[in-house]
């Protein structure tokens, strides 16, 4: 056990603590040693007029991304679980994009959505040009591209959950006259709730923290409409070399991660009738 814990500790616990310490420092790479500024970075963060834009972009991306992946993943998992002809192969194909690196996902979707030469522009005779050039189109694009890559992950978990549900339960439900939508709403979803909670948490954390696809697809644009908090962290540190500001954003992000995860767990524990 010891080596595993040591690895986790050295490269995980220490960095998190260090990040919080950094967020209290004024430190620009190449501009002298760090200086303690207390909550100065957070104050600067709150005073930044761009902060609302970043929060809106993060929030919008978070909600859309989680809903699309959860809804799509549930639909796909239910379809696999119904065991139609060819389910195994089709399921494997649907999961495949999970194995691609974010860069490849970004490049592929950029090649499809690129305003001048992309497949969408060619296929729609120019109407697809809007995909990356308007704020709404850009947000939709990053959600689709990210969902494309992440869907398989949700399907695997949800399918595992579905397969633990005893088929006799459905037989019993049918005797009571519940089938189709009714069975889904009153039998499947309540039984799936623990897994749904876990998947929702994982997807939320994923949406909050992943920035690679957005970076490649839109770079946060146009006019910062897709600049999420995690992209902001990266920008502050590796574009503007402002470690303190980056760490402050990272601290805010960590707080959001923790609060949301705890919130889901709580709501999952509170019984809410037969949802």
């Amino acid at each position: 056990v010891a080596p595993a814990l040591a690895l986790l500790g050295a490269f995980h616990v220490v960095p998190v603590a260090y990040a919080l310490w950094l967020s209290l420092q004024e430190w620009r790479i190449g501009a002298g040693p760090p200086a303690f500024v207390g909550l100065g970075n957070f104050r600067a963060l709150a005073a930044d007029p761009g902060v609302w834009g970043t929060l809106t972009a993060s929030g919008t991306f978070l909600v859309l991304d989680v809903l699309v992946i959860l809804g799509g993943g549930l639909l796909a998992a239910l379809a696999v679980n119904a065991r139609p002809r060819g389910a195994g192969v089709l399921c494997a194909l649907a999961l495949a994009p999970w194995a691609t690196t974010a860069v490849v996902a970004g490049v592929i979707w950029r090649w499809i959505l690129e305003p001048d030469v992309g497949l969408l522009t060619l296929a729609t005779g120019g109407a697809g040009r809007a995909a990356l050039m308007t704020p709404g189109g850009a947000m939709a694009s990053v959600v689709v591209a990210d969902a494309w890559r992440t869907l398989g992950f949700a399907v695997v978990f949800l399918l595992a959950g579905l397969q633990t549900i005893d088929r006799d339960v459905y037989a019993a439900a049918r005797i009571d006259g519940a089938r189709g939508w009714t069975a889904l709403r009153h039998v499947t979803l309540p039984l799936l709730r623990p897994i749904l909670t876990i998947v929702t948490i994982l997807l939320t954390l994923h949406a909050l923290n992943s920035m690679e696809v957005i970076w490649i697809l839109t770079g946060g644009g146009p006019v910062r409409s897709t600049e999420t908090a995690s992209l902001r962290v990266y920008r502050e540190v590796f574009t503007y070399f402002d470690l303190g500001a980056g760490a402050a954003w990272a601290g805010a992000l960590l707080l959001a991660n923790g609060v949301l995860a705890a919130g889901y767990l709580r709501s999952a524990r509170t019984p809410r009738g037969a949802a």
Partner: protein
Amino acid sequence: VRHERRTRLGAAAVLWVFAIFAIGPLLWMALTSTRAERAAKRWPPAMAAQDLTLENYGRLWTETRIARYAVNSLGVALATAALVVTVAAPAGYGFSRFGFTGSRVVLLAGLGAVMVSGMTTVVPLYVMFRGLGLLNDLGGLVLVNAVQALPLSLWVTTAYIDTIPRELDELVELDGGTPWTIFARVIVPVMVPALTAVALYSFIVAWREFLLAATFVTRDTLKTLPVGILGFFTEFGIEWGKLAAATMVATVPAFGLFWLLQRWLTGEPVARKT
């Protein structure tokens, strides 16, 4: 019965839609990689025989360091898989058989911590690695990749060892075996499937990892595939054919492994019913 058949047809249709959505973009990229650059922007994308070419791959090979990046990626991914297996197997054994009070909590907390921290660790790791001289060092990359893959791997090994009956341990113990001989003679042989899954998973995690590699490695000869490809993206005014060929190089090996992993993940039921 009719109702059930309709459900199955509907399910098949839904799955086809998902499969096409998943594979379509990849096929489009594969197609782009085998067409001459001049044909790439033509619509409709009819395949004329004279457009079909491997020149993109040829130019990728001669004009870029793609082979170097591929070797780096492969090395990092293999080392990560080896490290994770070596660490996770005995740790899983420890968690399963010698759990101290609260050890499960530690395990869960570890899993949670890695999930929750995400972007938060990139910056401090960068500063730490700069201090330790681990920037531009593939060994450092192996370490951080292993940490990414470790929590879930620990979870898998612990859960798997939990299913091995303790009576087996006791038999070896009666023969005078120590915990280490139990581990080597009983646990490891039985858990080969779990270790295979852990190795495949860790390999893929390392193979597709991008953010940390992009941050820690700036020297061109040390770049991994994703970072190298990002370099093409910004540097050569985007030659899409060549870029498409590069994405194929990065994607195809991962798919082979992923195919094996998903069969393990989705378990027997799906595989058996096809």
